[in-house]
């Protein structure tokens, strides 16, 4: 029988680059959970993309054993969390599985906003937050200042926080001791009905979905019939156990307080939603754990392959990714300009970028993606309501009774000095100011109601840029509101390019149309004849540019009788042309498309 008193469940909160992954690696090393030989940097971030971007995309958990100075051996479960507003919900579920969190702060840079958001989430979830001052080996390190900052801004004692260097392996032992002494052991009743919180799941080709969970009450063992309370799906547990750094370790049973996994030949991760409660089919718990929210895509875009014949590969790849990512949705769509592809839904822009990048890297696909969009709602004159995330489906103005767009409640936390930078930006994005609260003498929280469409493009990046990275953003869908929306069509040489159409608020349509025209002009190579570029609402042109005709493309030289060389040069040009997309009479290189589709609000 395991002793609940000797279990510690914790996560690590840190700003990007403040050393979360390095610290995690050191903890694993000290607990001899991995030998130095097996040590690969950033063991927890095992997705190539995560290592490269230095961010954690999926939550991850690992178990290690630590023999403390008091002679007792503790079971330590580190639950790693993603760190981006797109994944706030996932973060909150990961934190809900812990009793404590290490707050890692860079001794030179001090506290940063991204950490703040997650720290408050942790405090709200009732977690014990243990500050750790990292990178004390840096010449610019100023541990006393950073400690004071933690006390002033977050309001938790930090005076005797461990001062460490994960990189140089200094004082890691102290961190482990503090986990034992400061973070409470989990509560819970092993004899009560099973109640486990799903904080992640992952698809394994051999075992099916591996569900990562934290047991709050009860036990789970192979053979047991379990039920997912939100989705209603029922399964028979095949295997349960611990997540060790280098793999899964099957166990006879898992008990209240523990962190572990189970498998049950589950085919789709969508059956095992993050935040769902696992309970027994016999003797179920009467009440699910609070806080479950179904994954709701907020951002949509069309994804196509550069090479149209790769369409089936794209479908396979999306299906594979969806196995591991319940928040990803997709359905087939087609475009005159781009061929066959998929309309995909995402939690937010980072989620979208990550999926695109994974498709390109892990599945070796070259993608073309359309401008992201939100779901609009249109009440039509015939009394029906149409939901529309694709400009292509947007009804014509004469049948629209009322158009509505989604709004979010945006909370921006920032040091006071940046308020003046943030407010005009929010206003420019049609944000409605609600209130401003002082969290302490320096830190404020701004509340806005904003159209989701204004947030999804690059709001987060712009916010970071205007606040030296200090501000943090959280947003939550509120409702649909009436809006003066227009659909803008782009025309090349008089022909409409469906993939470039977009829906926007009338006040924003002109500026964006003009930028797209300019971008197209920059990126469309000169052709044998002049190409007019137009943006139009209905039949009315609101912006135009012209690509001048090509003036010079000639092999002046004679090359003696080397006709083959000439042919090869022309062939090469033809090869280049094959990469072009023919839009009516205009040849458009894929890069031009990409450049226009990557258009962001700032330029």
């Amino acid at each position, binding site marked *: 029988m395991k002793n609940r008193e000797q279990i510690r469940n914790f996560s690590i909160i840190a700003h990007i680059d403040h050393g979360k992954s390095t610290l995690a690696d050191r903890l694993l090393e000290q607990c001899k959970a991995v030998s130095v030989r097996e040590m690969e940097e950033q063991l927890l971030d095992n997705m190539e993309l995560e290592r490269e971007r230095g961010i954690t995309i999926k939550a991850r958990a690992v178990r290690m054993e630590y023999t403390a100075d008091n002679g007792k051996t503790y079971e330590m479960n580190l639950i790693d969390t993603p760190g981006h507003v797109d994944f706030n919900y996932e973060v909150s579920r990961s934190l809900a599985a812990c009793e404590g969190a290490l707050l890692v702060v860079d001794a030179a840079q001090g506290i940063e906003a991204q950490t703040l958001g997650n720290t408050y989430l942790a405090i709200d979830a009732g977690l014990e937050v243990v500050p750790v001052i990292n990178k004390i080996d840096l010449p610019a390190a100023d541990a006393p200042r950073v400690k004071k900052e933690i006390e002033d801004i977050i309001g938790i004692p930090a005076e005797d926080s461990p001062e460490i260097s994960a990189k140089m392996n200094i004082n890691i032992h102290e961190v482990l001791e503090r986990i034992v002494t400061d973070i409470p052991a989990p509560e819970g009743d092993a004899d009560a009905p099973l109640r486990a919180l799903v904080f992640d799941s992952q698809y394994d080709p051999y075992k099916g979905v591996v569900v990562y969970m934290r047991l709050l009450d009860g036990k789970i063992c192979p053979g047991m019939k379990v039920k997912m309370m939100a989705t209603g799906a029922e399964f028979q547990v095949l295997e349960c156990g611990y997540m060790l750094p280098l793999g899964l370790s099957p166990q006879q049973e898992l008990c209240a307080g523990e962190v572990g996994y189970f498998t049950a030949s589950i085919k789709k991760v969508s059956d095992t939603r993050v935040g769902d409660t696992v309970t027994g089919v016999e003797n179920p718990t009467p009440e699910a754990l609070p806080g479950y929210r179904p994954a709701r895509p907020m951002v949509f875009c069309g994804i196509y392959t550069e090479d149209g014949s790769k369409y089936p590969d794209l479908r396979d790849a999306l299906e594979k990714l969806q196995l591991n990512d319940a928040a990803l949705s997709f359905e087939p769509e087609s475009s005159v300009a781009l061929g066959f592809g998929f309309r995909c839904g995402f939690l937010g822009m980072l989620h979208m970028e990550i999926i695109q990048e994974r498709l390109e890297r892990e599945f070796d696909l070259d993608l073309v993606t359309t401008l992201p969009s939100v779901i609009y709602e249109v009440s039509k004159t015939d009394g029906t309501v149409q939901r529309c995330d694709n400009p292509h489906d947007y009804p014509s103005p004469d049948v629209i009774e009322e158009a509505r767009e989604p709004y979010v409640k945006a909370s921006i936390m920032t040091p006071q000095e940046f308020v003046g930078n943030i407010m005009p930006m929010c206003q420019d994005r049609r944000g409605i100011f609600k209130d401003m609260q002082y969290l302490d003498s320096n830190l404020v929280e701004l509340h806005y109601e904003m159209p989701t469409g204004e947030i999804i493009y690059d709001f987060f990046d712009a916010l970071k840029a205007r606040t030296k990275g200090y501000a943090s953003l959280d947003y939550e869908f509120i409702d649909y509101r009436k809006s003066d929306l227009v659909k803008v069509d782009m025309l090349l040489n008089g022909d409409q390019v469906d993939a470039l159409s977009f829906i926007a608020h009338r006040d924003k349509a002109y500026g964006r149309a003009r930028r797209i025209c300019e971008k197209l002009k920059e990126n469309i190579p000169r*052709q*044998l*004849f002049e190409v007019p570029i137009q943006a139009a609402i209905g039949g009315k042109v609101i912006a135009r540019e012209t690509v001048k*005709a*090509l*003036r*010079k*493309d*000639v*092999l*002046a*030289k*004679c090359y*003696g*009788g*080397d*006709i*083959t060389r*000439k*042919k*090869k*040069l*022309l*062939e090469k*040009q*033809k090869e280049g*042309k094959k990469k072009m997309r023919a839009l009516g009479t205009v040849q458009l290189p894929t890069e031009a498309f990409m450049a226009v589709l990557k258009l962001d609000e700032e330029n």
Partner: protein
Amino acid sequence: MKKTNAATGGKPLGLYLHIPFCVKKCAYCDFYSITDASLKADYTAALIRDIKAYGERCSGYTVDTVYIGGGTPTCLGAGYLSEILQAVGACFAIAENAEITVECNPESTDQAVLEAMHKHGVNRLSFGVQAAHDTELKRIGRIHDFAQAQAAVELARQCGFTNISLDLMYGLPDQTQAQFLDSVTQCLTLNPQHLSCYGLKLEPATPMGRENPVLPDDDTQADTYLAMCRLLCRNGFEHYEISNFAKPGFRSRHNFKYWDLSDYLGLGPGAHSFLNGRRFAFARDIRAYISGESIPQDEEEVSDFRRQGEYLMVRLRTSDGADMHDLENRYHVSTAPYEQVFCMLEKHGLAAHEGTRWYLTEQGFLVSNSIINAVVEAGE
């Protein structure tokens, strides 16, 4: 050079001889040449060896054009040049009215060379003048100045040459349109019968290509080209190929073979041939050529360019253009798709036609790569 009566000869053949020696390589040039003068004797012997060998193989042909190019043929000197010319006359049947051209560089075209060439039947000289401004000449790595070029051309006339072509380049780094047109005007005072005006193209494997200087932009170059065309037209030149201009009756018959898919034989390292529908070339390696190890290799055919594509590619370089009847008879293809593209081009002022013969306008010449690809694609 011994000449036969053209009427009695066989199939016409163009003969190209490559002289891969230069005193110094120009910064932009990627033709095969070396600066090691010590190989001249051995190379001359090797070339004559092949002239003999191929002369026997081509006994069914009558050579009606000879072109000695380089490199710098004139730097071979009067002696070796005479040997080569004599060998050509001895080993090939030469048409009586044959056009025999030698490329000349101003600095190495002395009286002895000129007299030797004249004596051995050379009747056309092509001078690499390139520019009339010494700063420009220096910039592109030429080792002569314009005064030397003027003197060489004068000397050539005194030696009896009456068919003289000059090479010029436009689109040089920092060159303005006015500067280039001034070069053309100064060259016209030398009273040439023919002008070749090439736009500078940066070849990656040359010093200039590696330097990658800023060249005048495409619009400037296009305007310069069109201004040059007007200037030469006013001075009585016919614009008969993208880069070539001639007084009536003085078109280069040898170069025209390249654009007419006629037979030509090229000897020397890096020289290309087109004989009986077969394309082959010698490796760019003078030592292998001298030792006789260099067997000409068939050139890889580019699959997408079918015969008719090749025909269009070369014909559309000329002011004669491509005759749809001719195309139909040669390759038994439908010309409708081509004509459709030509009509579109005509609307934009890039092509014109007389009956079934379509040709590119000067604006069309300027974008001929795109046009040729569009036309060829239409037929695929």
